[in-house]
């Protein structure tokens, strides 16, 4: 009985569009929103599929076991006896990312704690935009900053340091990542309800004790996702390590030496003109797949860590 369409709108001087058009418009909007949501998922799926597909070709020639155990990586350097061990690239990646995290996590956390718990609003409004600019500096600028400023500066303290080294690249990368850590961590600390702060103050805490013993642990779930994001950025960062870390794929654990990261290798290959379909060309997909696996693992670890240590409020 209500099925009869409205003849005219309830408001005078307005006219409802016919029901058919109204419904169509609504459907259209919903599907546009759905597609927007789907696009990120689809992109991710496409990337993984492409990497898997090309890597599969690669692993037909090179055994998976050799890929993950061989300590030499010479797919291009050595014509006669190329070696395909990812470990040298992995070590370079881990060392540079490790240095970057050693810089960015403490500085970013302390900065977030300062901004959220100590800074006067005026000071915060001044510092936050500057911190955020750090994240906007092009990475190629950071790369040359590492090579031309930080490395020479470090060499005055560490005379043995080479022109190309993972230490300087990692440190500058760390500086670049600081705003990611501080911004997300600050949001997480701001979200901690103020009645917890008041309870801590009422117990006789100093402001630092409130920040460190109550607010930080209460916000650890959000903060750990900031750390994971930082780690993902560090592992995936390309330009700085390409410019400042040297390109020699070798097993390294000492950040003072030079080394190649997975990303730096991919860039190096992509800059050359390798014919499609060759084994050398496919190496970059195997390397890329390794990167994705690392990032995925980081995210999963982060998820569980956050769940395990979450303090619910």
């Amino acid at each position, binding site marked *: 009985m209500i099925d009869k369409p409205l003849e005219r709108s309830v408001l005078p001087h307005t006219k409802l569009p016919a029901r058919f058009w109204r419904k169509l418009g609504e459907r259209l909007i919903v599907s546009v929103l759905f597609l927007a949501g789907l696009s990120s998922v689809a992109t991710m799926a496409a990337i993984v599929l492409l990497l898997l597909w090309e890597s599969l070709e690669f692993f037909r020639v090179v055994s998976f076991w050799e890929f993950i155990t061989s300590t030499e990586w010479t797919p291009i350097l050595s014509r006669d006896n190329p070696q395909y061990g990812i470990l040298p690239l992995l070590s370079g990646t881990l060392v540079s990312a490790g240095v970057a995290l050693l810089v960015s996590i403490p500085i970013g956390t302390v900065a977030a704690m300062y901004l959220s718990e100590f800074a006067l609003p005026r000071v915060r409004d001044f510092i936050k935009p500057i911190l955020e600019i750090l994240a906007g500096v092009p990475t190629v600028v950071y790369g040359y900053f590492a090579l031309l400023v930080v490395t020479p500066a470090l060499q005055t303290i560490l005379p043995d340091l080479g022109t190309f080294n993972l230490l300087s690249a990692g440190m500058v990368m760390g500086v670049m990542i600081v705003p990611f850590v501080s911004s997300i961590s600050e949001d997480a600390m701001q979200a901690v309800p103020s009645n*917890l702060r*008041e309870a801590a103050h009422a*117990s*006789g805490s*100093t402001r630092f*004790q409130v920040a460190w013993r*109550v607010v930080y642990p209460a916000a650890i779930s959000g903060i750990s996702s900031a750390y994971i994001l930082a780690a993902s950025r560090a592992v995936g960062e390309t330009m700085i390590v390409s410019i400042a870390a040297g390109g020699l794929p070798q097993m390294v654990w000492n950040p003072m030496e030079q080394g190649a990261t997975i990303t730096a290798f991919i860039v190096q290959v992509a800059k050359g003109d390798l014919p499609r379909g060759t084994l050398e060309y496919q190496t970059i997909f195997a390397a890329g797949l390794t990167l994705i696996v690392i990032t995925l693992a980081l995210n999963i670890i982060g998820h569980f860590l956050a769940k395990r240590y979450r*303090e619910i409020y």
Partner: protein
Amino acid sequence: MVDESQTSEPVIAVKSGVELKAQAKDLNFFYGDNRVLKNVNLPVPDRKVTALIGPSGCGKTTLLRCFNRMHDLYPGNRYEGEIRLDALNILSRQVDPIEVRMRVGMVFQRPNPFPKSIYENVAYSLRVRGRIRRSILDEYVEGALTRAALWSEVKDRLQEPAFTLSGGQQQRLCIARALVSEPELLLLDEPTSALDPIATDSIENLLNELKSQVSILIVTHSMQQAARFSDYTAFMYLGKMLEFGNTTNLFAKPTNPKTEDYLSGRVG
């Protein structure tokens, strides 16, 4: 409207011979330019329960939060006058608010346990006072939980998160957290307003037992609660202290007409 000329200055004093733990003297408090407390006088007798009552917005919570300098946490707040804790004027610039809060415990309107274990919630108040031996810590935590009438309910689950407790248990945990550092004065800001009647009853019984050990100043919106277990009652109205006295006397024959209106339910 309050006609200033008709309201004579109330006499706020206790009988001689009653020892005071704390006392507000001609206290004014400002949020920015807004004067919220007007020449407030309040004696807090030693090891008794003093209840602060009055309609919403009369300034009773604001007054309570002066006693541990909570207002210092936010910019733009200003005190004038004195609050004596024993002989010390805790509003003096030379006094560190943290030292005040180490002597004065506080329990809030809504239970606000830290997102930590039951044990760590109570231990917190001691940990912030410096390093302390584990065995001593255990002893104090057990003592505080016992005094807060919670020990028997939680002794087998001390490492569980505080959020697994019920609302009433959480509030008793907050009381234990305040008691563990053996405060001289315990401030409670409507501690039962978020709780059901049974939990409220258990908190009231608990406070009744505590008053032999610690002076208690409690804000309550419930006149019945004030009548049930406080020794002294103070009635506030529009930022002023209108009446203070022995609870029985104040409820039986209030001297100020405003108090009478409030108690009989005509105001507030």
